[in-house]
C-alpha cells in the first residue's frame, strides 16, 4: 500500500488510479496525454451509466486531477444536480462490473491498471471435476495391479508344471531344488534336471548307496 493513500484531496469518494503502461506494452507503449484522460473519463462515465439511477452520468461529471509521471491520478464522479460526489460504494461496484471493458480500452490488465481500494476479483483456478492426479494415479495403479497378478499367476503355474513333471528320475530332494530354481525368478542352470542333462556316468539311483 502506497503512502499516498492518506492524501485524499476530494475526500473518501475519490479513487487513486495507477497505470504501468511501459511494463505492459514495452516498446508499443503509448504516451499518456489529455486525450487518454478523456477516454478514461468516458469509460468511467460509461460504467456509471450502467448503474440504475445513474443513467444520466456525463463525461463532464468525472473529474481527474493530480496526474503524475508514474502515471497515476485521482478521480471522482460528481452529481452536479445535487452538487456532491457520488458515494464510493456505487463507483466501486460500477467499476468492478465493467473492469474488463476498461482494461481492454487501454490494452492493460488488472495488474497494470490498478484502482487502489477496488480489489479485483481474481480468476478462480480451473478445477476439473475429477482432479488430474487421481486419473493418472488410477492408470498407474491398475497397470501395477495387473502386472502383479500376472507375475503371481505365472509363478503358481510354473510351480504346478514342475511338480507334475517327470517323476521317474526325480526324487524328493531334486523336487525341492526345482522349486528353488523357479522361486527367485533366477534360473539355476547347473541343476535344471528338466532339461534332461543328467550325466548317467556320474550318478544313477542305485549308485547312491555305496554297493557292498
Amino acid at each position, binding site marked *: 500500500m502506497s503512502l499516498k493513500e492518506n492524501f485524499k484531496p476530494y475526500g473518501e469518494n475519490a479513487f487513486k488510479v495507477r497505470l504501468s503502461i511501459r511494463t505492459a506494452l514495452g516498446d508499443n507503449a503509448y504516451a499518456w496525454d489529455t486525450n487518454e484522460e478523456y477516454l478514461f473519463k468516458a469509460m468511467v462515465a460509461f460504467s456509471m451509466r450502467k448503474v440504475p439511477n445513474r443513467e444520466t452520468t456525463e463525461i463532464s461529471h468525472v473529474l481527474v486531477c493530480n496526474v*503524475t509521471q*508514474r502515471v497515476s491520478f485521482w478521480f471522482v464522479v460528481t452529481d452536479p444536480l445535487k452538487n456532491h460526489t457520488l458515494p464510493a460504494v456505487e463507483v466501486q461496484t460500477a467499476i468492478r462490473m465493467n473492469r474488463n471493458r476498461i482494461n481492454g480500452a487501454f490494452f492493460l490488465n488488472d495488474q497494470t491498471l490498478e484502482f487502489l481500494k477496488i480489489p479485483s476479483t481474481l480468476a478462480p483456478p480451473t478445477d476439473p471435476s475429477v482432479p488430474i492426479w487421481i486419473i493418472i494415479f488410477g492408470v498407474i495403479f491398475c497397470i501395477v*495391479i495387473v502386472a502383479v497378478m500376472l*507375475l503371481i499367476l505365472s509363478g503358481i503355474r510354473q510351480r504346478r508344471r514342475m511338480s507334475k513333471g517327470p517323476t521317474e528320475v526325480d526324487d524328493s530332494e531334486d523336487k525341492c531344488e526345482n522349486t528353488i530354481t523357479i522361486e527367485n525368478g533366477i534360473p539355476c542352470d547347473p541343476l535344471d534336471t528338466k532339461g534332461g542333462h543328467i550325466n548317467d556316468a556320474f550318478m544313477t539311483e542305485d549308485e547312491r548307496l555305496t554297493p557292498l
Partner: protein
Amino acid sequence: MEKARPLWANPLQFVFACISYAVGLGNVWRFPYLCQMYGGGSFLVPYIIMLVVEGMPLLYLELAVGQRMRQGSIGAWRTISPYLGGVGLASVVVSFFLSTYYNIINAWAFWYLFHSFQDPLPWSVCPLNSNRTGYDEECEKASSTQYFWYRKTLNISPSIQDSGGVQWEQGLCLLLAWLVVYLCILRGTESTGKLEQLANPKAWINAATQIFFSLGLGFGSLIAFASYNQPSTDCQKHAIIVSLINSSTSIFASVVTFSIYGFKATFNYESCLNKVILLLTNSFDLEDGFLTASNLEQVKGYLASAFPGKYSEVLPQIRNCSLESELATAVQGTGLSFIVYTEAIKNMAASQLWSVLYFFMLLMLGIGSMLGNTAAILTPLTDSKVISSHLPKEAISGLVCLVNCVIGLVFTMEAGNYWFDIFNDYAATLPLLLIVLVEIVAVCYVFGLRRFESDLKAMTGRTLNWYWKAMWAGVSPLLIISLFVFYLSDYILTGTLQYQAWDASQGQLVTKDYPLYALAIIGLLVASSTMCIPLVALGTFIVRCLKRGDTPPVA
C-alpha cells in the same frame, strides 16, 4: 548335499544390483549439501581419503562374507560364530525400520509426479482465499512451493503431539509405492539403497559418515546380494567398481545441484530487485520503467536526500537484495528435493517436462534403494527353513510389504513428517556403526583373518592384498570406533533433542522440544536393534549351557 542357491545370471547383474542399491537419494540430497557446507571442492579431499580407507575395505568385506557364507545376514554371521547371529538379526531390524519409513519418500515422489501433468504447476501459484480478493494467507507468508509441500502434500500439524488423521491421498500413494516395490521383488530384481545421516561439525567426520552410509554398509543388503554370487566371482574388483561409481554419482549430482542453486538464486535475486523497484516507483510516483537494476542505488541515494521523510517511511519495507545471501541457503533432505528443486523447476521453460523427469528420477533412485532394503529382510526369511517350508516366496514378500505398508501409514498422518524425521535421524545411525564394528571384529578376530584369507583364496583364486588386511585389522575398526564415540558424545552433549515444526501462522519453521514419549520411542528405536547383538549371544550361551547340562558326558 547343499541345497541349490539361486545365482545371478552374470556378474554384471550383481554389480548393477549393488550400484542401484548404493546410489540413492543420499547422493542427490545429502552429498551436495555437505560439499556446500564444508568448503565446496575441498570437501572432496576428506571424502576420497575416507572412501579409500573406510568405504572400499568395508564394502569388500561385506561382499566377501556374503559370497563366502552364501547366506543372508543372519545365517552368514551364525556360521562365523553361533554367538554372532544377533549381528544379522540387528541388521534385519534396522533394515525393517528403514524400509518402513523410506518408502514414504517414494509416495511423495509419486504425488508430485502425478501433479506434474498440470498447467500451471500446482506449486507455482498460490490458491485464492475465501472471498477471492487475494491469495491464501499461509501461502503469502511462506512461498507457493513451501505451501504446496507443507499444506497440500503433508497437511502438517503444528507439532508432533497433534497427530491428526491419516491423509487418504498420501495413503494411496504409499500403497502404490509398496505395490511397485512388491512387483519388483517378485521378479527378484536388484536394487540398493542408501541412507544419509546427521552432521557432526567436522568435515572429516562428515566425509567418513557420508561414505559409510552412502555405501549402505551394515544393513545386510550387500551380504544378501553377494550370497547369490558364484563362489569364484572376483568381489574385490566389484567392491572397487561399486564404490567408485557411487562416489562419481555423488559428485555428478553435486554439479547438477549447484547449477540448480545458481539458477534459483539468480531468479530470486532478480525478482527481489523487481519488488524493490515497484515499491519505490509506486511510493514516489516515478515514471514507469525509469528505475532499473543498474540505476537503483543511485536513485535510492537521490530519493533519500530529496525526500527524507517519505524515504524513511518506506525504508523498512525495502529488502536488501543480495545474490550471496540467496546462494548461501543450503538445504538437505526432503527440503532440498521437494521445496528448492520444485522452486527452480517452476521457473524453467517447459516446467511440466522437467518436473516429470525429475520426480521420475527420484522414484528410480528411491525404488532402487527400497529393493535392496527388502532384499536384506527377505533373504534371511527365505533362507530360514521354518518359514519357507510353510509359505511360498510370493506370500512372504507380500506379507512383509503389507506389514510395512500398514506401519508406514503412520507417516501419512498430519504429524507424519515429524515421525519421519525421527526415524531418518535415529533409526540407523548408531546401530549401523555398532553393527559394522562388530562385523569387522568378528571377521578379523573371531573367525580369524588368516582363515578368512585362505577361504577367499580357495574361493576366488586370488590372494588377499596386504592393503585390505591392514585396513580390516587396524584402520577401519579404529575409524568406526572414533565415529561411534563422536556420535554418542554429540547426542549426550546436545541435551534435549529438538525438531523443526512448521508454524502455519508465521509461514516458517520453528524449533520445538520433543515430548517425553517421542524421546522414549527414539531410545526404543536405537535399543531394539543394538540389543539384538548381546541378547542373542546371551541366549545362545544359555541354550548351549542347558544342552551341555542335559547330555551326560560320554565315557
